């Protein structure tokens, strides 16, 4: 994983649930990861899929990803090109699913000082998020969790660990 990520912001509010990130009606009908991306955030922000660019960063309020445990709510964003998610807090299983899918996440209050379209920098080495107006510190993820992110997710991480190429 890159230790410094720069990207354009998509700003959202509190309690964004997995149903609006990836609608329930597609959970059994769509199995292709790329196709999942076409529906990312469909019920929250129809513009998102049209305008998202590789490396963009979602910055949100509290309890991002609450509701169902569906992993598609992480996969669809990752496949759409999202480089990281920065939120005030994450719902528990969503947090785990991000790590396991290899999507970097940061818990801090950056949402207080950004607007959609801003450019921000996440420095994982220093535990810092730099927005045009402020700087936020976040606690580092545990080394064992960073290893999973570095490997690109849990499946590749387990492969490495078990010595399967």
């Amino acid at each position, binding site marked *: 994983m890159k230790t410094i990520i720069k990207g354009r912001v998509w700003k959202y509010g509190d*309690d964004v649930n997995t149903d609006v990130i990836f609608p*329930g009606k597609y959970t059994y009908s769509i199995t292709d990861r790329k196709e999942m991306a076409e529906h990312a955030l469909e019920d929250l922000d129809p513009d998102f899929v049209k305008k998202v660019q590789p490396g963009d960063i979602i910055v949100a309020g509290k*309890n991002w990803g*609450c509701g169902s*445990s569906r*992993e598609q709510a992480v996969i669809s964003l990752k496949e759409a090109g999202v480089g990281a998610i920065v939120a005030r*807090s994450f*719902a*528990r*299983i969503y947090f*785990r*699913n991000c790590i*396991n*899918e290899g999507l970097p996440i940061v818990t801090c209050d950056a949402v207080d000082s950004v607007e959609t379209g801003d450019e921000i920098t996440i420095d994982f080495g220093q535990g810092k998020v730099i927005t045009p107006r402020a700087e936020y510190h976040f*606690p580092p*993820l*545990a080394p*064992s*969790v960073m290893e*999973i992110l570095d490997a690109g*997710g*849990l*499946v590749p991480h*387990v*492969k490495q*660990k*078990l010595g*399967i190429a």
Partner: protein
Amino acid sequence: MGKTFAEKILAAKAGLDETVPGQIVTVQPDRLLTHDNTSAIAKTFRKIGTDRVANPNMNVIILDHVVPAANETYAQSHKETREFVQQQGIEAFYDVGEGICHQVLPEQGHALPGMLIVGSDSHTPSHGALGAFAAGIGRTEAAAVMATGEIWLRVPESMRIEVTGEMPPQVSAKDLVLHIIGDIGADGADYMSVEFAGPTIESMSIAGRQVLCNMAAEMGAKNGYVAPDETTRQWLAGRTTSTYDEILPDEDADYARVLHYDVSGLMPQIARPHRVDNVVPVTQVTGLPINQALIGTCTNGRLEDLRAAAQILRGKQIAPWVRLLVLPASREILLSAMEEGIIADLVKAGATLLNPGCGPCLGAHEGCMAPGERTISTANRNFKGRMGSREAEIYLGSPATVAASALRGAITDPREL
């Protein structure tokens, strides 16, 4: 400073002297619970590239969600699960008809005090009722646990809920937990380990404790817990030959939050659509007509629940416009209820008996709703569209409230009967 249950058990399992909230530990679960999603998990497991599960004794697999298979797709998925069980030499496999995973797991002696249990189902916290640490995980992680025998867990902050007072007549554990969720909200215990304690909990049956820990998931909790005691030991007697370690929180443990409830004045509670924390006393919604009533699920499909319903319905007839669906949570419960005459009482009163399993709870079969219909259910979730149409409504209540409502054909306060 003392340690909470979560801090102590995760330290013990990780081989550390102590842990603090926020710390990440790597542990080997004692049990990995999977259900109908085993076939999907097995596919990811193969993608990892391993042939054998790390420890076949860790796996407990129970087919319960859509049983018997509702169509060919489910039938194929069940078949793949049976093949996987065979290939991997997994002994703890329970096929169609045994019951809901969260009931069968403890009944068959797979959930014991001091165990660490992970499950690919969000209501896995139920097993804290027996003093285990039990948490839900995603499917990819379940596949990784199969491959490696390990998982990373974040040590949660802990919340202690102290309950005092005697339950009034026709008020039960479900009413208490709905009241708490209404109070603290659906994210009131996000990420936390919730310990239920106090005299009311100590005098509660295992079934009641399972209701509390099951619904801890609806507060956002990582796990629920009740300290094991004589009630636990008696319930487990004859179900396991294994020894177990009871892990208890220290008396001076440090809690992020402590809440106190007195149940002596508690009324029956109802969660209105479409959120579990949209809770009011039943008196605010009585008279609302219903089309369907459901008694069962991993929350309230146990013998004492069926007993409470039979007590209300014995010798009477439900309202002619209501479908009353009764699903014992397991074969064991079904048999006991038959022996006690409860099943006959309910069926004579007009109930439709369904096989042990999840039944209509997840809206896949056996009792889905049409637009505009209303169900009152003993389940744990009332989300939009969960039991069929997105334009249908689900109200949640206790078995007594649901039985009373089936009788009158409208939401009814069971204390009025």
